[in-house]
């Protein structure tokens, strides 16, 4: 009989050792609640739902393979979202992605009305942000993660994240202003 493992009921501290020992149910219980956030992170970074699905799948397999590297006391969510963020960076860095997705980041989107066209401008501006700034904005603004967790994923201090977020917002505003002129 299959036992349904609930991550919230059992607790991460108990599930992680079991998953490390090869218990796939424990791993699924750890991972399942994070898939939605991972998909939103990848989608927001790449602006492509299909690529986001691929990234989440690849990241999950990578997490399974690298689970032994999850240190005691490290929470699963920042660790896994860190893997997703790195996969997004790698995807943007590979040649085929650059050619297909980044060669013409200013490509016009279909006209769909004034408010939606404004969103298209905003998306273009987001795409022009460097990976790290975009990542911080997506983690804090889109996934609504607290600064402490954003800092854990980004491998920075909270103060550094806070000031870089401010710079990212400023840059985003500047790009939108230029777009309006």
């Amino acid at each position, binding site marked *: 009989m299959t036992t349904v493992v609930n991550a919230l009921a059992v607790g991460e501290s108990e599930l992680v050792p079991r998953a490390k020992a090869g218990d*796939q149910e424990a*791993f*699924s219980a750890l*991972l*399942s609640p994070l*898939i*939605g956030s991972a*998909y939103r992170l990848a*989608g*927001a970074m790449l*602006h*492509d*739902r299909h690529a*986001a*699905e691929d990234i989440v*799948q690849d990241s*999950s*397999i*990578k997490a*399974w*393979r*690298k*689970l*032994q*590297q999850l240190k005691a006391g490290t929470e699963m969510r*920042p*660790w896994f979202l*860190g*893997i997703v*963020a*790195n996969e997004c*960076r*790698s995807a943007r*860095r*590979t*040649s085929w992605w*650059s*050619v297909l997705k980044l060669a013409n980041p200013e490509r016009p989107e279909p006209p769909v009305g004034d408010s*939606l066209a*404004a*969103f*298209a401008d*905003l*998306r273009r501006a*987001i795409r022009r942000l460097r*990976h*790290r700034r975009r*990542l911080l*904005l*997506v983690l804090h*603004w*889109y996934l609504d993660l607290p600064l402490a967790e954003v800092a*854990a*994923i*980004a*491998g*920075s201090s909270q103060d550094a994240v806070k000031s870089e977020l401010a710079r990212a*917002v400023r840059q*985003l*505003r500047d790009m939108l202003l230029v777009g309006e002129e």
Partner: protein
Amino acid sequence: MTTDSELRRRFVMAIDEVLPPAPWLASQVGDAVQRERRGARRALEGGGPRLRLAAGAAAILITVVAVTTLLFSVGLHNRTVPNPSRNQTPLASPTYTFTPSPAVRAASWPPGGTVPEQLAGCWQPKLLASTDTLCLGGYSFDFGQDFISGNVVVNGSEIDFISDTCTAQATYGYDRYHYTVTGGALVLTKFPTSNTGAWGNCGWRLQGSYTKLSSP
């Protein structure tokens, strides 16, 4: 001028617009991980007595061929250019070990020698909570278990990363960086003029600071 909260609201809506929910993804991912796990287990255990017998015979055959090839290659040696490709990483391996290539270089590479002792080993990027590491040794480098790998030459304070992944034509390309090593910290600074002409376009963005993880 919009307020931060208004800009944030628009930010969320702009992304939501191109990102429909994917409720099936969790089960799809679960299946993929299960397949991965089964594949790894099959690779380790075999799939039954007959299959194990066949696998054993195949293993013996492969070993004989490998030993013969090795003996030949040692004897005849040696125009082979080492380039550990990503496919050489065993997919089911839960732990990853970086193995530098032998000390042989191709004439077409930029000038330079093998990785010096102070650079050799694996380095963790400082900027992101990366699970990928940059490993250097001999004429080889590897960045991330499943991402990029290839050859490397070091010339003074310059280090060039060479790989056939830089060009669509599978010819070699390279990415040039200055490096400094202080204590356990490595800093890579990209040359502004690399990736031009016939060398293709790598654009790996290896620039940054790294912390030493291990020596070979």
